[in-house]
């Protein structure tokens, strides 16, 4: 049944959307579609660089086939997932904790808010470089502290050269940088929870932990979900922090599918490598597979959420 009103709403909606949609279609949607076309091609050594896009060779699904056999690609997926697991829950947890602490009436609360939020405005590259200084073996401030505590585990290689600690090390830096953003969102959300809900919980005999567990967390769930989505996107796009903190994608001491793998070579970084080698077609194929994977995850997520509602 076509409704007059819906038709009219459609017209107004698209009028409102027009400026956004125009830019979106031209500068985002088209490149994504174009990327698929690209992923079926190969930029050969002899490809005319003045004319790259018309001089590439159509290879159909060869890039995808190659990708399927590429151990580095599979490894990058694993590391990306690991990185997401390292950063997302920690960012959410830290953000929530800070928000809860800052929700108290204390002197200088707004000062703290600024302080916690400030790292967000720092360039990731700069943060990465600074943490490299902090983590470095022998001379880094962290090792100086470890020396005082008698910890010598990281004295020789530091945090970032140890395949086990390199990625967690990067994750810590990024979590500390990003937690302030989550904090702001949580704070806003927590302040929106009516006091009566807490009072009711208190009367029902809930202690501080139960209140957190049964009142706060369920009520800030939308924020958590939002941060999960954002974190996933950030993990898929993670490049600058890897670039700043490890060389060529990190300590190469991991063996997987018969190849040496970089402990911090996330898919975003791997994509960059291929891209900078002018393997545009292959890079496009990588991004398409990533897109497919994340879309499937998102759709499943959305379905699950809808069912719950």
């Amino acid at each position, binding site marked *: 049944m076509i409704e007059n009103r*819906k038709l009219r709403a*459609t017209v*107004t909606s*698209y009028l*409102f*959307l027009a400026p*956004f*949609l125009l*830019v*979106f279609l*031209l*500068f*985002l949607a*088209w490149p*994504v579609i*174009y*990327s698929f076309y690209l992923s079926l091609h190969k930029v050969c050594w002899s490809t005319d660089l003045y004319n790259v*896009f018309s001089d590439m060779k159509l290879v159909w699904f060869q890039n995808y086939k190659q990708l399927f056999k590429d151990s580095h690609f599979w490894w990058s997926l694993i590391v990306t997932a690991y990185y997401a697991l390292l950063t997302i829950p920690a960012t959410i947890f830290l953000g929530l904790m800070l928000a809860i*602490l*800052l929700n*108290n009436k*204390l002197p200088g609360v*707004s000062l*703290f*808010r*600024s*302080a*916690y939020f*400030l*790292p*967000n*405005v*720092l*360039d990731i590259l*700069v943060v990465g470089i*600074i943490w490299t*200084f*902090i983590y470095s073996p022998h*001379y880094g401030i962290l090792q100086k502290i470890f020396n005082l505590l008698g910890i010598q585990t990281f004295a020789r290689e530091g945090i970032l050269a140890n395949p086990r600690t390199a990625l967690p090390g990067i994750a810590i830096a990024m979590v*500390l*940088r990003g*937690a302030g953003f989550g904090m*702001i969102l949580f*704070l*806003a959300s927590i*302040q*929106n929870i009516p006091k009566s809900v807490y009072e009711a919980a208190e009367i029902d005999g809930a202690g501080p932990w139960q209140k957190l567990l049964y009142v706060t967390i369920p009520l800030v769930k939308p924020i958590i979900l*939002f941060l999960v989505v954002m974190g996933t*996107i950030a993990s*898929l796009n993670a*490049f600058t922090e890897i670039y700043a903190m490890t060389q060529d994608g990190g300590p190469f001491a991991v063996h997987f599918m018969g190849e040496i793998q970089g402990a911090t070579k996330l898919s*975003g970084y791997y*994509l*960059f490598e291929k*891209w900078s080698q002018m393997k545009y077609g292959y*890079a*496009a194929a990588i991004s398409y597979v*990533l*897109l497919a994977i994340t*879309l499937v995850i998102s759709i499943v997520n959305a379905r699950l959420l809808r069912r719950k509602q």
Partner: protein
Amino acid sequence: MDVVIFRRKLRNGLIFFALVVGAVFMLFPFLWMLFVSLKKTGHGFLLDFAFAKPFFANFKAVWNNPSFPFSRFFLNSLIVATSGAFLTALFCSMGGYVFAKKDFYLKELVFWMMLATLMVPGMMYMVPQFAIVTKLGWINTYKGMIIPHVANVFGLFLLRQHMETIPNSLLDSAKIDGASEWQIFRTIIVPLSLPVITTVFLLTFLFQWTNFLWQLVVNTPDSAKLTLPVGLALFKGQYSTEWTKLMAASAFSIIPIAVLFIAAQRFFIEGLTAGAVKE
């Protein structure tokens, strides 16, 4: 009674202490950056107090730079970041409004399309985007630097999320009061979403302010529109990097954003909490 007060004081004291420790921890990179920017060449990583002589030598070297006019780059950055953030906030608000409050054909499809583009690493966009910008003749222009990033899907979702919480009755009421669609948007939706719009504005400002590769690519080297990040990149040499100068330059370029964020942050948080009428 006394015990209760004492316990509360103790609790607050502990929280305060935790907050201070946390702040030191989280601000550490920030402070360290300032520290490094004041140090002697090559001493960046050391925990010593070998400061540059004169004290602000690194900052001076950045400011009085013969190779790029710092103030002009700064101004360009300001123009690009401000108008980029403004347009992004405007377009995202308009889009967020219809996604939150309107029912229209192909809504789901457009939604998923947008979501999909979020998942693709930004690098993939660069070459096609660049081809379009060239076709449009936008090389060396502010619009070439700004427009391609104005459709910020993330900002749109953020705003949509917020606008969904504005009660429909307000819109109905405005309709009955005689407001047109644009007036509803302008007089009800925008004022009530202003905090989130500000958030989007700030985040895009930040993004545009630090955007390096795109600004580099879309300008020819002789362009008068070059921005700060491109200028800063000149400090990163082919073989070695002057960390101390680079940190000084970073500290310089952070000042406006830090000021902007701290100035806006009261509004930023308060607003996020305000939102709609209760009950």
